């Protein structure tokens, strides 16, 4: 059976709120991208960084949502994995500067 064993309550893995968050993030990123593409040159450098920030922060927000959810449900091993991943991503900030 493919090496898989069924857990007690597999339904706790479903993520409707996360899907809604992702739709909203996508809408915001797309709106900022359209604005950056059509705005006058003087505004591009003001709006562009916000577009990039949304593209960077949306996946981070997804991780934070998963971190809170898994911590609440006692899935500590993978909550710690998220913390390690966030630390690696924070290292990129240090490297970038």
């Amino acid at each position: 059976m493919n090496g898989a064993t069924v857990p007690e309550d597999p339904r706790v893995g479903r993520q409707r709120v996360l899907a809604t968050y992702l739709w909203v993030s996508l809408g915001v990123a797309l709106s900022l991208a359209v604005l950056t593409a059509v705005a006058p040159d003087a505004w591009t450098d003001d709006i562009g960084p916000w577009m990039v920030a949304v593209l960077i922060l949306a996946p981070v927000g997804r991780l934070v949502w998963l971190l809170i959810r898994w911590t609440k449900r006692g899935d500590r091993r993978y909550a710690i994995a998220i913390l390690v991943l966030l630390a690696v991503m924070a290292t990129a900030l240090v490297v970038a500067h």
Partner: protein
Amino acid sequence: MILVPLLVVVGVDPLVAAPLGILSVAAASMAAAPGQVGEGLVHHRLGVTLEITASAGAIAGAVLADALPESVLVRLLGVVALAAALGGGLRKGMRNRPEAGFSADVAGEWPGTLQGAYRLGEDVIPYAARRVPLGLAAMTVAGIVSGLAGVGGGFIKTPVLSELMHVPVKVAAATSTFTVGLTASTALIVFAGQGRVDYRAGAVVVVAAVVGGVIGARLQGSLAPQFVRRWLAVVLLVVGVVVLVRG
């Protein structure tokens, strides 16, 4: 995967093309995410575990890209395009099979494990990720390539998940889409910090990637995956050869 080699073919500096490629990866990953999460295809625990080494590799790659000569980056892009063509062209079919004892209730990732199940029509197909240490090592390589070349690395990650770790292709594709978004996010932090992002061109790329991602997700249902993979492999093969010949 194809944007950066194409930009290099038309004469764009690889150092400028790489951030644009990463922007397109981040946007395309974002466009695909809501649908894939809604269908329960993404295995977040597996993705997070593997992404630790991939993101570390992406940081190393992005820093190295700044230090390497342009000719080396161009050659690397050519090799990456050829490797992607090969990976897409040779990908296999279905390994995990439906299990009669599993109901639709168990579809999705299973808490506390690197196991899960997904629905394929009326059937439920359980799976379990294998060879995790090897997968972590392969993801480091995928991350380095992403940071160096400005590509998503999905052409490495999806085969690693499906062929090496025995994750079903549909779950592997959705999980690697999640992880390439994170790798792109990490590489983008470095590129933005280095002042290498052209916002106007980047915005056009993001709009195109989102629109393309949404259309692609719709087309996915009507076009056979093998058909799409083979045509993409042909395009990448041509681009890879042109990049290598010109470089």
